[in-house]
């Protein structure tokens, strides 16, 4: 007997989870990625589900992750690779090559962009990568659409034989909304394909490469035809020709209805406007745009960040002899900076109707309220081992006899960058994964004669820091590298990385110990410190600063958040109120969020305090006492 078809579940999902479940529904077999806000949640949710027959992993970096996914797709399986926009830069070297080769099984790249910069780094528009690599790109406008379009992306990828991008922005990736979720489909039983075809899978010579380039362009064209047949880009023409045509790309479409409601208060007629909603942003939806240009006399282009589609509209307008107004970024009306919302819809319609001023609010929001708010620079958590390392670096610089602004300390991506903020002001630069090492070497060659320090976290070291260190060793560049190894990829929400302790690795996985790598690379001056021991750490860094050549200091303590989740504490401290004169030195030096000021004494919140004891070490009135022994630091294998 046939079973009843399962009823779709109504669930509240994030956009990231929708991508993950959509991929499961599509029968994905291999999922790889590297954590990065706002994309992290997709792979995290799959690791939680542990779907049977599906390989899911955090890879060392996005390039490795993408190569693994591509290899699986070349073997005929469906594969997904997830990353934030910065990660796409890392993966791109392989991506362009794999784009030329195409794929066999479906290969989907999920990339999340961050217009409005909620998580730091660049306001990069990854649509540019789709253009540059001639790969199709789909852009859902809602969480529910993300679930559906990931499945479409796999089908499209397999039908055309090309990798396909799915791009979300933060507002969708991290939003939670209701989605009808169908049963996941186990990966189909496909025998792994072993196809030896150097014309497809190598880049040996111009004949092969140019043939691949030709095929790549043909595949994008074919994808465009299929996208057209599927009607992915929705075109609704108004009853009467000659009015306003709105083109809304990706997320901007989600604000249209709300914008129409507001504009209606000013006499705007919804049914007089034609709308093209662009879901597939690459290839350019030429046919639909041409129809719209023939039908309308004014075009309003809504797209966040770069005017990619708008440029295409100008080309089509030129071809068709369109003489109407095109409102967008290229006429200076909208900004290339920041997120779009309902206000762009309303302002754009106002401009199109020639009534901009009437549509603008009479009293602009002043912003006076925010200016009264106290600045709240982000700092490291209570118990964070990086606090001790920043304090030790500062102390060492002072003891070697330099002022803080005489010693360059390059920074890197992750929690370790928080050393740029008060009270530490330790770190000077933040560029990209692993860049602390290259930038530091550049300063040395640039003629800086004071010591140069590079700082980096464990995951970032594995991701892209190692080549920089190898370069420093090869060229014997005098610098001190401080690796802050807290055992987790912490800032993105505690992912496992190669250095994470073995019990937390995936089954069958193995820890790669930084303490073994450094000596093996030929670093002569290698030290390990416990960042909760301030004087010892500071003395070690001080020594390193005076030695020649490449010095590496490995600061080891587990991330306090993770340790506390397992019920661990580094120790205990207590305040001796009669000794405290409220000099606030503990707050000035540590900036620890667990310390506040009471009436006659400082107060340490016992729920927040991890017992690292750094405050006790800076107190010079014996007003903070350590109780019991501090926990042992993380060791090697």
């Amino acid at each position, binding site marked *: 007997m046939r079973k009843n078809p399962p009823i779709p579940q109504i669930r509240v999902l994030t956009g990231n989870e929708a991508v993950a479940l959509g991929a499961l529904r599509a029968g994905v077999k291999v999922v790889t990625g590297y954590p990065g806000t706002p994309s992290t949640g997709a792979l995290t949710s799959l690791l939680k589900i542990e779907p049977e027959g599906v390989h899911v992993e955090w890879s060392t970096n996005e390039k490795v992750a993408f190569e693994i996914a591509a290899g699986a797709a070349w073997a005929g399986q469906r594969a997904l690779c997830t990353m934030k926009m910065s990660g796409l830069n890392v993966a791109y070297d392989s991506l362009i090559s794999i784009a030329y080769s195409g794929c066999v099984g479906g290969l989907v790249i999920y990339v999340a962009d961050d217009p409005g910069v909620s998580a730091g780094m660049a306001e990069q528009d990854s649509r540019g990568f789709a253009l540059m690599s001639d790969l199709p790109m789909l852009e859902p406008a809602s969480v529910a659409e993300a679930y559906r379009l990931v499945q479409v992306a796999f089908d499209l990828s397999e039908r055309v034989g090309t990798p396909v991008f799915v791009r979300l922005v933060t*507002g969708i990736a*991290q*939003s939670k909304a209701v989605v009808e979720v169908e049963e996941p489909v186990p990966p189909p039983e496909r025998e792994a394909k072993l196809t030896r075809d150097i014309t497809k899978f190598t880049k040996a010579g111009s004949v092969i490469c140019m043939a691949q380039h030709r095929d790549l362009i043909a595949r994008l064209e074919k994808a465009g035809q299929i996208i057209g047949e599927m009607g992915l880009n929705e075109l609704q023409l108004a009853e009467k020709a000659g009015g306003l045509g709105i083109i809304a790309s990706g997320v901007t479409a989600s604000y249209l209805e*709300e914008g129409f409601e507001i504009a209606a208060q000013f006499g705007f007629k919804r049914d007089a406007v034609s709308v093209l909603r662009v879901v597939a942003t690459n290839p350019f939806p030429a046919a639909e745009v041409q129809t719209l240009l023939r039908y309308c006399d004014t075009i309003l282009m809504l797209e966040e960040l770069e005017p990619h589609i708008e440029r295409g509209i100008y080309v089509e307008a030129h071809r068709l002899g369109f003489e109407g107004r095109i409102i967008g970024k290229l006429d200076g009306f909208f900004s290339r900076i920041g997120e779009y919302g*309902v206000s762009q819809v309303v302002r754009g319609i106002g401009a199109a109707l020639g009534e901009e001023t009437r549509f603008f609010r009479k009293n602009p929001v002043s912003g006076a*309220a925010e200016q*009264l708010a106290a*600045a709240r620079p982000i700092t490291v958590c209570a118990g964070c081992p990086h606090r001790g390392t920043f304090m030790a670096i500062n102390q060492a610089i002072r003891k070697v006899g330099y002022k803080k602004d005489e010693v360059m300390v390059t920074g890197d991506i992750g929690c370790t960058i928080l050393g740029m903020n*008060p009270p530490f002001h330790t770190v000077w630069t933040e560029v990209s994964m692993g860049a602390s090492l290259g930038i530091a070497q550049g300063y040395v060659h640039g003629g800086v004669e004071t010591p140069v320090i590079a700082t980096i976290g464990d995951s970032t070291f594995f991701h892209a820091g190692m080549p920089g260190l190898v370069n420093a060793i090869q060229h014997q560049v005098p610098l001190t590298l401080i690796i802050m190894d807290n055992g987790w990829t912490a800032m993105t929400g505690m992912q496992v990385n190669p250095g994470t302790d073995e019990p937390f690795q995936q089954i069958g996985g193995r820890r790669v110990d930084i303490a073994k790598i450094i000596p093996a690379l030929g670093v002569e001056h290698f030290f390990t410190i416990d960042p909760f021991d301030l004087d010892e750490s500071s003395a070690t860094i001080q020594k390193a600063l005076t030695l020649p050549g490449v010095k590496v200091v490995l600061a080891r303590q587990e991330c306090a958040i993770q340790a506390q989740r397992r019920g661990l504490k580094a120790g205990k401290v207590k305040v001796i109120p009669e000794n405290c004169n409220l000099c606030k030195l503990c707050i000035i030096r540590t900036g620890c969020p667990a310390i506040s000021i009471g009436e006659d004494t400082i107060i340490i919140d016992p729920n927040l305090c991890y017992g690292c004891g750094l405050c006790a070490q800076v107190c010079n009135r014996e007003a903070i006492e350590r109780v019991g022994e501090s926990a042992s630091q993380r060791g090697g294998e």
Partner: protein
Amino acid sequence: MSLESRITDYESRFTFDVYLVGVGGQGVLTIGEIVAETARRQRVPVNFYPTKGMAQRGGFVKAQIRLGREVTGANIPQRGADLVIAMEVSESLKAVRFIKPGGDFLLFGHVWPPAAVMLGKADYPTLDQVMEQVQEAGGKMHYLAPESLPLYEGNPVAANVFVLGAAIGHTRLGDVLDPLEVAHVVQTRWKRGVERNLLAFQKGLEMRG
């Protein structure tokens, strides 16, 4: 108002936007989770968009909840929020530009001073300044003193559940979400402390007056 009539309201395009602000560690996002889950149970379309900075604790946290739209962007426009829930005095100022004239502004008056303020190197806004800004923006202020936080077995209850109760009891969010449904979600969310959380929610509800 019965649940049925509330659903009918949504069919006639009733929308309600909530802007939440506070400091990481106060459970601001949990309020949003509970509201979103209640909305799902009541079949009210919902989009919940939390944004937290990089810090686990002590950083600025905001969230946006949009109720009643099938298709919606995540961001509430300026002067668009029917309700602001603010859990910290200084951070509440960052929500002022979003309050709709005539909208409810619920402020839990907790003060979490940044280090620079504790050290006397930076100013912290007064409650009067906040009140003035909210009034200027046309918001209807509902102030909850931190001392009003009820005790359970001698210890203060979770502020976020209390504030959520007050939002349901004090503001128009209570016309959108059924207090019984919210209580149910509060009750089933945590395995431990059910009684404590229900008390927090109930005491918040009863602040109505």
